[in-house]
């Protein structure tokens, strides 16, 4: 009776001492792994493989696509910077680039301000403190698509709850998703609602590491609340602020889900950001080269932001 081949290997994995591979080779490998200079890199190999496969390869392939005239279903040939030139000359791309900067800058500034205020409020003593601290995280925890769908209904041109309330007090509400600047304003509102808890919780954690003695000393010296905040709290929060702003800028600049669900970049491309435009151009229109070029435009901007932030952190 022959045993199925798999049985031998399973027994080896169970450590029953049955050699699946030649003993000499295994001993040699084991010997190498006893040395730190080989063990360290060996343990990094799985993570490196993941990075290469899921980050480096798509990135390099994206660069190739951006430099080619590839379309969906058609292999492309090298065309240099033609896709970038074409996109930069396109009105829609120019508007999209401006939208992306506007969306990122405005949303991040307000998230910073509201997050700081939230942290200051949460840092006080009050009943059910832990419950409240957990509850304020909800907007950030709820999946983006789910919460944005709820906002979509709240902004709907026919069923908006905001406009219903405004109508009851005699005010005609705006078309949140369909009139001039309101689509961008609506996107920024939802992004702020989603992202403020992240800032708040990070700032709260930072505040709780500030030694109480500093505040006591300031109180003894007659410092008021604002002086304590400006001279103690804020300076000591700068490292946390730097990291939080860096992450938020990256995530907001590269945002896709929120815009896709709420406005789809409309009306008439007026609220497109780089992420959604890359999707329309690359996937919907099939112009992979153009879509990749739009997407890669984010890279130099974000690279500069990361570099400046890391320099600032180093100096700090």
């Amino acid at each position, binding site marked *: 009776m022959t045993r199925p081949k*798999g049985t031998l290997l399973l027994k080896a994995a169970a450590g029953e001492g049955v050699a699946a591979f030649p003993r000499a080779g295994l001993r040699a490998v084991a010997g190498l792994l006893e040395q730190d200079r080989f063990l360290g890199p060996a343990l990094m190999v799985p993570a490196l493989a993941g990075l290469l496969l899921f980050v480096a390869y798509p990135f390099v392939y994206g660069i190739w696509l951006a430099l080619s005239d590839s379309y969906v279903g058609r292999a492309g040939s090298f065309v240099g910077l033609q896709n970038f030139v074409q996109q930069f000359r396109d009105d829609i791309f120019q508007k999209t680039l401006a939208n992306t900067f506007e969306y990122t800058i405005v949303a991040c500034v307000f998230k910073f301000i509201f997050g700081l205020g939230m942290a200051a409020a949460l840092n006080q003593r009050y009943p059910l403190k832990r419950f409240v601290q957990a509850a304020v995280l909800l907007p950030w925890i709820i999946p983006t698509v789910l919460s944005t769908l709820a906002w979509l209904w709240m902004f709907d*041109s*026919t069923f908006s709850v905001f406009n219903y309330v405004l109508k009851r007090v005699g005010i005609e509400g705006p078309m949140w998703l369909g009139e*001039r600047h309101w689509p961008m304003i609506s996107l920024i509102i939802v992004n702020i609602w989603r992202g403020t808890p992240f800032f708040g919780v990070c700032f709260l954690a930072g505040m709780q590491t500030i030694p109480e003695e500093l505040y006591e000393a300031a109180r003894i010296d007659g410092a008021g609340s604002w002086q304590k905040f400006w001279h103690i709290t804020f300076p000591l929060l700068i490292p946390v602020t730097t990291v939080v702003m860096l992450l938020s800028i990256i995530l907001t600049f590269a945002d896709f889900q929120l815009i896709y669900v709420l406005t789809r970049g409309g009306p*008439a491309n007026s609220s497109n950001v780089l992420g959604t435009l890359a999707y*329309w151009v690359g*996937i919907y229109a099939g112009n992979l080269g153009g879509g990749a070029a739009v997407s890669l435009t984010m890279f130099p901007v974000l690279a500069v932001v990361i570099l400046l932030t890391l320099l600032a952190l180093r100096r700090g």
Partner: protein
Amino acid sequence: MAKVRLGQLVSRRDLLKRAAVTAGAVASAPILGVCSPAPAAVKERELHILQWVNFVREMDEEFIRQAEGWGKANKVKVKVERIGGSDLQPRMAASVQAKTGPDIIGIQANWAWLYADSLVDVGDVVEAVTKAPVGSFYDDIAMQAKVKGVWKAVPYWYNPGTYVYRTDWFKEAGVTTLPKTYDEFYKAGVTMKKYGKPFGQAMGHSFSDPNTFWYAFLWSHGGKEVGEDGKTVAINSKETLAAVERAIEFFDNVWTRGVLSWDDSSNNRAYLAEELSCTLNGASIYFVARKDFPKIAQNSDHFGILAGPAGRYGQVLFGHHVIMNYSKNVAVAKDFLKYVMQPDNYSKWLQSGGGYMVGPSPYHEKDPVWKTDTKVLPFLEAVSSKVFRWPGWPGPPSTQASEALVRYIIVDLFAKACSGEFKPIDSVNWAERQLKGIYKG
């Protein structure tokens, strides 16, 4: 009690040895599976079909019933997958690019031109489907499916739009004659907006309603994307400018607020919420009303495609089936398509929709479905009157016209002017730049 360290229980050498062997076992298991002989039983054939989620659920149910019945009779495991209509194109693009995915995809519009290189020649299926008594397809749907003389798709349905309106409100407001032209439609719309129940038409980026209305609006006012050669961009004309200026008048005096952000479902919701008195749509509004809002259904009816100064034209959503060239089940897929297009089977599917879809050939005009409810007859008339044209008309269908369609150039031509972002002439110039960029490729 002294703490016991992991190193005292298992040596580093043992741990690494076991990890390496386990990894080797996991990695080689599939190889062993391939090398081992397969079971003696015959491998079941499979067919994977991808379609959109139909607005009329009963049509999906009938299709699945037929697919499963055919599968059982022919020993084929049939999987029918449904996704939202707006997700269909990204999924198609992903399948084409990855060269893997469904065997049959239910595509729409002129996508056969966009993805022609990835589709199987289905001329033999078309030949089988169009033999007597069915006969040939309508010209416009055939043009979307036949790419440079080769059948790349099997035409499946029309989903025409006509104007659903509230008969009671029209009567109360004094609109006693149904509009036949855009001018009459405008006058009726102004009256109804003053009455408090305006009209509404989507101007957002969704695959059906915006294109259906605004392409027809452009053509009916004499505008066109390209000339008859299908290459010369012809959007910048006095007719197009007049159409854009007229669209602004509609926006200011006829449409309800918010249409710039509307997608395919917005007008359905607004009509069934009794906020609108008239909108261009497929029969889905009426069908939902018939089922869930009988009072609205009783007070609703339809009127046909409107005529403009340059003629009576419409744009419609077509549906086809395509077989992907990466499929390993091409013969099976072809047999299945021949089956669903057999007159009896197709008639059952049409009837399950109650008039929501129209068949792709004149033969289906005689289907019993058109005797069930006279209120859906305008949908049949819209197809049989042959007013429908295709994106890129009067040029032939093309990949460039497909690209212009999916980038909503024509919809945005009107949306940008109506929103005030551009003056009418600037909007026309913008559309011209966009189309020149597409057509030069």
